């Protein structure tokens, strides 16, 4: 038994590490992708390309617009004087937001009437549009508040001290600067490990099926478990090594703090990799060719990442989908990653996630092993 497993492992390691290119492919792309995603994947919306039309052209309107110019969220790229230009700019994607101030804006304010600021927004990217409108609202609200205070102050200085208001006392826990890299980097670790381990495992078995060596192995006395262990142990180790590498990039390069224990992170990674080995093996049992394995892998990867809470919160998904996410190992691993990295929590908090991954991994591995037969039909 041990002799055969040893033989399998030696052979797998030779094949995986023989040539430079495959050695690089195991570790290069995950690190490069970590770097790329770390920079590109961000929820922050800044420098929204903006056009302005000021038909009022008053001191007050210029004052309002200058607040947009000064804001890091808006990048005023065009000052227009014809409404029709807006459509053109938005169609081409040159601007996302157009602000239009009507003639008589300053006069309305002066007379104590409601003045209107029109916001035209390209909502084809709905999330950005929503956030942009939010920012506009914030700036306009602040402006309107300041304007009111100023007028009250100039008419009756005493009143100002009695003006009630709520001041936000912000106490962001875990990520004081709302740095979205801190949010994304742990998630990217999860995604990369998912893609790497699932595809490596699925391809390793299907490739042997395709070139015919699997048939040759099937007629030897090798046991099902020996074969599967021989195929998965190398990728388990490679998965762990990849996790370590990209976590180091996250911590050393992006400065994401690792507040919790490395041990807890390691337990999470091990359980998650086991789940991914199970999925990879399962895909290999339903695929006859590498092409089929690739498509099946894709069919798993995309939904798994989408329904993990990686980019969009699970709580905003439809209820049915939320239930489905409980079957998704990545959902739990992201909890573990963010929990250990940012919150610094331990097993006392994360044990339900660990248990869920353990159970899912066990179920998936069992199904895959049961489905793997030493026969061709």
């Amino acid at each position, binding site marked *: 038994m041990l002799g055969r497993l040893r033989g399998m492992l030696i052979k797998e390691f030779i094949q995986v590490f023989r040539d430079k290119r495959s050695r690089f492919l195991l570790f290069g792309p995950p690190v490069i992708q970590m770097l790329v995603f770390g920079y590109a994947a961000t929820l922050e919306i800044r420098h929204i390309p903006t056009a302005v039309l000021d038909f009022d052209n008053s001191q007050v309107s210029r004052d309002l617009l200058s607040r947009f110019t000064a804001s890091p969220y808006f990048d005023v790229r065009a000052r227009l004087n014809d409404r029709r230009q807006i459509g053109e700019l938005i169609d081409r994607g040159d601007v996302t937001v157009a602000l239009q101030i009507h003639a008589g804006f300053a006069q309305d304010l002066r007379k104590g009437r409601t003045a209107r600021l029109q916001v035209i927004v390209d909502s084809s990217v709905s999330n950005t549009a929503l956030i942009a409108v939010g920012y506009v609202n914030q700036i306009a609200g602040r402006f309107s508040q300041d304007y009111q205070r100023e007028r009250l102050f100039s008419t009756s200085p005493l009143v100002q001290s009695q003006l009630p208001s709520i001041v936000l006392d912000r106490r962001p826990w875990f990520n004081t600067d709302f740095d979205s890299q801190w949010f994304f980097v742990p998630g990217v670790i999860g995604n990369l490990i998912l893609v790497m381990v699932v595809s490596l495992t699925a391809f390793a078995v299907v490739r042997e099926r395709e070139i015919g060596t699997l048939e040759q192995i*099937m007629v030897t006395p090798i046991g099902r478990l020996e074969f599967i262990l021989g195929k998965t142990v190398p990728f388990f180790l490679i998965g762990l090594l990849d996790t370590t590498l990209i976590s180091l990039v996250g911590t050393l390069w992006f400065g994401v703090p690792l507040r919790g224990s490395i041990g807890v992170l390691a337990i999470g990674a091990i359980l998650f990799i086991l789940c991914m080995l199970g999925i990879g093996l399962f895909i290999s049992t339903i695929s006859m060719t590498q092409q089929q394995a690739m498509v099946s892998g894709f069919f798993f990867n995309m939904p798994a990442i989408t329904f993990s809470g990686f980019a969009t919160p699970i709580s905003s998904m439809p209820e049915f989908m939320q239930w489905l996410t409980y079957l998704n190992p990545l959902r739990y691993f992201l909890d573990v990653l963010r929990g250990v990295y940012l919150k610094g929590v331990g097993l006392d908090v994360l044990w339900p996630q660990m248990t869920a991954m353990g159970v899912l991994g066990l179920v998936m591995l069992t199904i895959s092993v049961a489905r793997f037969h030493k026969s061709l039909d």
Partner: protein
Amino acid sequence: MTDNDAPPVIVRDLVKRFGDFVAVDRINLEARRGEIVGFLGPNGAGKSTTIRMLCGLLRPTAGQALVAGYDVAREPERVRQRIGYMSQKFSLYNDLRVIENIRFFASLYEVPDSVLKERVSWILDMAGLSGRKSTLTGTLPSGWKQRLALGCAVLHRPPILFLDEPTSGVDPISRRQFWELIHTMAAEGVTVLVTTHYMDEAEYCNRLVLIFQGRIVASGSPTELKQRAMTGELVLVECAPLGLALDLLRQTPDVADAAVFGNALHVVVPEARTMIPRLRTHLSQHGVIVARMEPIRPSLEDVFVSLTAAQGAGGKA
């Protein structure tokens, strides 16, 4: 193996269906110790399917196969210890060195360390790979690869060897060397079941089993088959145009069969001596130029064509 005299391979009413398609239809067979049994038949006849069932790669739909005394459907693992298998697909790892492939298969068969060294040098000698054990397998010429694959398949010295078109894509000289190896093994008592569609290879077998549409249509030694199958004598006709001659001959009474072989015709007649002059005249009268017409000894290919033709006609009727 309780009974040493029992045939190493016993097949009884073996059937394999894939959906509605009957790939193997009630095959019966016995192979003795040291016998080389050749499975002959066109592509899709069921040769490979039969071999794969005997190796435990496919589950029989019905019937029974005993290999080395064990039922392949019930105890495939016991069977696997006692067989070697080599398929038409080259089944070693191209990205491993020669010695790494040997060591890998040796580990799967749990070849003890004490004999491993001797087996390794035996394979290297046999495959002509001495001094090249560090060569990447993928870079070897196909004949050498094939012999290496054979070596890896018999590392554990199995008493039974299954070869599924082992020499496809291998040059003639390598094929002959390969068959010499097979004969050496058979002489040492190894039972060999081999599929092929090279007719010349069939002559190397002790016994031939002709398979057509999943059924055994004939079996016997090459010589027996040739005698039994051909009712009549065989005449070689070299002439032009070939197509016209074929039509004319097929319409001639007393001609049992006529078929194209290469650039000539093979014609089956009751008696060659009396028929040759008649046929010669008949063909020339219709404008066929006859270059050569003489009696020949039937090859296995003739036997095969005549048997499958009879079978095909019988099947339609």
